[in-house]
């Protein structure tokens, strides 16, 4: 289980930092030779792309966001500061959280730039419906579209928290690192977001 990664560290604790990032070897390789960044890119492309897709609602913008995110990450890799500690557990990846912070900024930047309501419900719904399920296709799209539309209507931080939790399957601690909030605040964001979506969908069973 990943633990918080971007927390404040007291000065006297600095010398006791132990690097446990599960991506540490990949990051070190990329720092020695930028061409080795390809491994990190292949590992996280689908996650970053998917996050951007749910946030922006169409493939074109998601591709744009993924491209900017990885190019920025490659350029700034020298400034990546690993903060994992023994208490953070074995699966912690400060790199993943750092990458998603970049993605969050890039996506927010694109959303600010276009200043229009996202076309998310339709295209996202089309993307998540199973293409082989002919009979269930229409209703699946309709259900997924309604669910995503409800999530899309949430305030930005709640929406992001739900997407990171459900789509990216991030832990509360990782989401806290990405959003720059405490774990408690993230739990409340998710709880309120979920309640708002439940209200929006009428609490119907499906």
């Amino acid at each position, binding site marked *: 289980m990943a633990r918080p990664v971007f927390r404040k560290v007291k000065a006297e604790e600095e010398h006791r930092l132990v690097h446990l990032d599960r991506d540490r070897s990949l990051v070190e390789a990329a720092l020695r*030779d*930028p*061409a080795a960044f*390809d491994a990190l*890119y*292949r590992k996280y*492309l*689908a*996650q970053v*792309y*998917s996050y951007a*897709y*749910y946030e922006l609602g169409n493939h074109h913008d*998601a*591709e744009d966001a*993924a491209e*900017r995110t990885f*190019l*920025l990450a*490659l*350029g*700034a*890799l*020298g*400034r990546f500061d690993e903060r994992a500690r023994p208490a953070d557990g074995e699966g912690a990846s400060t790199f993943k959280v750092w990458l998603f*912070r*970049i993605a*969050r*900024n*890039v996506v*927010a*930047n694109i959303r600010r*730039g276009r200043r229009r309501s996202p076309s998310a419900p339709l295209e*996202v719904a089309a*993307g*998540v419906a199973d293409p082989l399920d002919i009979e269930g296709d229409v209703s699946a799209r309709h*259900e*997924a579209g309604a*669910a995503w539309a409800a*999530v899309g209507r949430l305030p*930005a931080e709640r929406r*992001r928290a739900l*997407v990171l939790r*459900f*789509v*990216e*399957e991030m832990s*509360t601690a990782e989401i806290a690192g990405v959003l*720059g909030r405490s774990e408690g605040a993230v*739990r*409340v964001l*998710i*709880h309120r977001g*979920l*309640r708002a979506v*439940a209200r929006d969908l009428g*609490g*119907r*069973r*499906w």
Partner: protein
Amino acid sequence: MTLDARNDEPEIEALRVDRYLESILLARDRGSLAALHDPRLDVGLRSTAERLSAQLVRVHPSFRFEERLALRLAEAAEAMRLPAAVGASSSLPTPISPAFGSRNAPGFGQSQVDDPAMLTDDEDEAAFHARPLLIGGALTSAAISLAGAVLVAWRLSRPAQPMARAIRAAHGRARHESGLA
């Protein structure tokens, strides 16, 4: 129930929801449907969580896009390797051209380019920051209108001074005479 317990209730429920989500996401990973059963959790919340877990699935980019971006990153990596090879710079340069919208993109200040992981205002916060400007503008315009109304009222209510009346009369006569001439 004590006051403290009531105050903590939302956080306790948020913790329950968190545990429940953990269990359904774990069940999804294992390909099973069995999730934690917590009768204290609201039925509507449970069904919504299950629905989102089933329907918000990861979306993959096209193979073509993946390879195109991989090539672009490889080119950028090569460009970064060259200056390092000749000892031009010990730190990695940013391989982003303005076409990618980093340095010149609206909303990306120099600090974000230096540290792209530094959190920026999100769209809600940006709207919130814009609000005082709008409110300030409206208040200023209202204040100007009010000041104008007060001035007119003051002028109307103030009795004319004899000297001022004489000056206005003299000016009026001069204009009249020059008009006649």
